[in-house]
């Protein structure tokens, strides 16, 4: 095969040699031409031309391809978490039921715990991501609540829960105490906390005991108090998960906190140290700040409604406790705000409590009585004359003395006792008493409060200030709340500015103004807080054309500073009660500094 054979009688003409084919078969072809008869005889004598071509018919063996179905091993990662602790009285098998008088948290919400940015290890991050929603966590029998938490409070708890360094800076009256206690409670139930130290101002110790009893009744407490041997014993006492101490005794007990055990190794250590009213440590060099920083701890939390009272340095001071070196005093407010954003949670009532009755400001702009005017003019002229005479040796202390003197005259004339503020207050209190309501009146001075108590006798005034023994203060509040004939509580900013729940009072009077707006806000929020059923009327007394009006302008500027740090807005100008500004109150030049801004 491979060569085609000639077909027909004229082989020379018809032969054809195709290229070598793999396989061919010869075909015999016989031809019997039958020409069509046309009558053309010559044509009939010729043979027809026929060409034939061999066709190769191939039968190749089919090729096969195998496709293996491999079962590659699946790569997995595994994480195992510690088994949660079951507390006495808790039955994990039991479905959620409200305790007697308690409120079961609705499970339908989904407030989830998110890992903070500074938790790096994947296992730690997943431990938080995989926790159930707070609503689910709280829906076990032992975690019933006296009242159902607000959604924003659950968010606050979810914020604190995973954090080792955190500031809960909600506006006063939003329930920071409850949020902190519940976060501690959950962490204890999950086995992540075994020992907690709470440090608060001394007058608030009782308040915290009461709140723990309300929100976490199953957690045993110990208050560090008594003489030094007893306090030392209490510091070292084990088996009490929460201890409460006050700032004042920390100085005295610093040696206990720094001492190592008999073996020279371990010091007293807490899983969490939480500071209430943490603006107390804003001064980094202060003894209080240094004392809290020596405590060995795992987590550091701070609670404050006023993280910035005077300047951004206040926040730097708090962060020296939370995360030393994290903030620098040189940072611009906006950058500082961005830096701390993952560590600070701040909400205002306007943001989260739209249903809360409003706080209505009804400021009273008054003029001095003629007697006060004369005293004020004399005191001012003498004071300025003295400051001018002191020249470069004039100090801030000299300015403060003059400011305080003038503010006192704005309250009462020192010679006659005349007071335009008192006249206005009496008129307002008539309205309060007639309607059966209650009012709280704040002043900077105990002397002013005592004087007011005399004048306002017909309204049944009660006093709450530094001269009232701590043991009697709870009784004063109780009486004010329960006795319908007691319409007025006279409070000093220093003693009553924090920790008091006076939401049954509908009127707040600031008889004189404090130096920074945060303290004033704290005072107002004693009444304007969760639980109020009617608007709170706030009257801030201000004497026109006096030192009070100038201070008021500075206070407004300080409010803007807080806004700048926590909302990222640009401040209008450099703020704060600087030395220059203090001298500027009297149009004086600051010794060794630039001319202050005179109002």
């Amino acid at each position, binding site marked *: 095969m491979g060569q085609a054979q000639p077909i027909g009688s004229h082989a020379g003409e018809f032969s054809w040699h195709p290229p070598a084919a793999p396989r061919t078969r010869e075909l015999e072809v016989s031809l019997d031409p039958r020409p069509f008869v046309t009558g053309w005889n010559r044509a009939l004598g010729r043979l027809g031309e026929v060409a034939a071509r061999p066709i190769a018919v191939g039968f190749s063996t089919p090729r096969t391809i195998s*496709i293996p*179905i491999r*079962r590659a*091993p*699946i*790569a*997995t*990662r*595994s*994480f*195992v*978490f*510690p*088994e*949660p602790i079951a507390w006495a009285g808790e039955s*994990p*098998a*039991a*479905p*959620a039921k409200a305790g007697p008088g308690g409120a079961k948290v609705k*499970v339908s919400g*989904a407030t*989830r715990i998110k*890992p903070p940015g500074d938790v790096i290890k*994947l296992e730690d*991050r*997943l*431990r938080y*991501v*995989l*926790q*159930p*929603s707070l609503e*689910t*966590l709280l*829906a*076990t029998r032992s975690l019933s609540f006296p009242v159902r938490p607000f959604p924003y409070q659950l968010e606050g708890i979810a914020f604190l829960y995973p954090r080792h360094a955190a500031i809960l800076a909600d506006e006063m009256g939003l329930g920071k105490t409850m949020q902190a206690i519940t976060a501690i409670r959950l962490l204890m139930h*999950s086995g992540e906390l075994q020992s907690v130290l709470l440090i608060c101002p001394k007058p608030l110790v009782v308040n915290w005991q009461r709140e723990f009893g309300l929100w976490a009744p199953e957690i045993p407490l110990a208050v560090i108090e008594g003489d030094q041997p007893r306090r030392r014993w209490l510091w070292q006492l084990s088996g009490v998960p929460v201890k409460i101490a006050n700032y004042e005794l920390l100085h005295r007990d610093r040696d206990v906190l720094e001492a190592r055990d008999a073996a020279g190794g371990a010091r007293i250590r807490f899983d969490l140290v939480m500071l209430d009213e943490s603006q107390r440590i804003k001064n980094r060099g202060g003894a209080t700040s240094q004392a809290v920083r020596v405590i060995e701890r795992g987590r550091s939390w701070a609670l404050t409604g006023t993280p910035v009272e005077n300047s951004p340095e206040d926040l730097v001071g708090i962060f020296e406790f939370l995360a030393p070196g994290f903030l620098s005093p040189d940072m611009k407010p906006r950058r500082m705000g961005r830096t701390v954003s993952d560590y600070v949670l701040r909400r205002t009532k306007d943001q989260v409590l739209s249903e809360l009755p409003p706080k209505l400001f009804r400021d009273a702009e008054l003029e001095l009585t003629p007697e006060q005017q004369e005293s004020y003019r004399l005191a001012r002229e003498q004071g300025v004359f003295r400051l001018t005479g002191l020249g470069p040796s004039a100090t801030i202390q000299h300015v403060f003395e003059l400011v305080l003197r003038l503010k006192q005259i704005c309250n009462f004339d020192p010679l006659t006792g005349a007071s335009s503020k008192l006249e206005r207050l009496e008129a307002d209190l008539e309205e309060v008493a007639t309607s059966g309501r209650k009012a709280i009146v704040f002043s900077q001075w105990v002397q002013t409060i005592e004087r007011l108590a005399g004048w306002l006798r017909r309204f049944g005034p009660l006093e709450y200030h530094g001269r009232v023994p701590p043991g009697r203060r709870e009784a004063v509040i109780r009486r004010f709340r329960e006795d319908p004939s007691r319409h007025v509580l006279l409070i000093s900013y220093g003693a009553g500015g924090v920790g008091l729940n006076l939401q049954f009072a509908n009127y707040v009077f600031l008889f004189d103004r404090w130096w920074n707006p945060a303290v004033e806000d704290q005072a107002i929020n004693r009444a304007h807080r969760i639980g109020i059923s009617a608007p709170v009327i706030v009257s801030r007394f201000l004497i026109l054309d006096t030192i009070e009006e100038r201070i008021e302008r500075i206070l407004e500027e300080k409010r803007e500073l807080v806004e700048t740090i926590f909302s990222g807005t640009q401040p209008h100008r450099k703020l704060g009660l600087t030395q220059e500004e203090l001298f500027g109150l009297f149009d004086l030049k600051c010794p060794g500094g630039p001319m202050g801004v005179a109002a």
Partner: protein
Amino acid sequence: MAGAKCNYALGFLTIIENPEHGLFGGYLILNRAGRPLEFHCTAPVKPNRAQQILYGPTLEPFLFGEQIGQSLLDKARSEPVVVCTDREPVLAVREFTKVPVALVLPPEEPGAETTPGHDASANEAPADNAPASDALAGNSPAVAPPAGGRVYRCDPAHGYGRCGPAFRIGPNRLAVSLLAADDRQAIAERLATLGDWFDLAEPFQRIREAIEEARRGGQ
């Protein structure tokens, strides 16, 4: 690995489909209070073209149940009383575990009929009408109606990846594998002591977030 074994645990197994990376498996074990005890997840799994062709409609039950599901269940230290899933093909894992496996169905729309889960399009032949659950009610997965209704292929491998009719335990709507109808009774008994507040669908969201967190962390 540290951690103690829990005497009552619930398993939650799901598969996340990522268009870019493939399939991620996640297995979360919770205690009775809903707190995490263990979490296991897989690296992404991507079937190749040959597998897609050759496994055909059985690919998902194979990947979800046999490959990923079985691998994850084998890693766990605690044995749950029930394994829950929100993906129907994961039911195929039942062939490889003695623990009952429940498919958690989405809440019923008001007025809607009780029908099985959301992966119903896989492994089914088109038919005229009648839902699968009607046709396949009872213990016989192999019986398909001669005319009308959806017709299923029903050899064992396919059957484990398909669910039967829905039923309720507390607020949760569940179904079990067609080839493990007895699981329904076992699941009812084992979940009887669980609080009414326990939403069996909720943990799958946690798994999704955890897989996303693990994926971000691995980048």
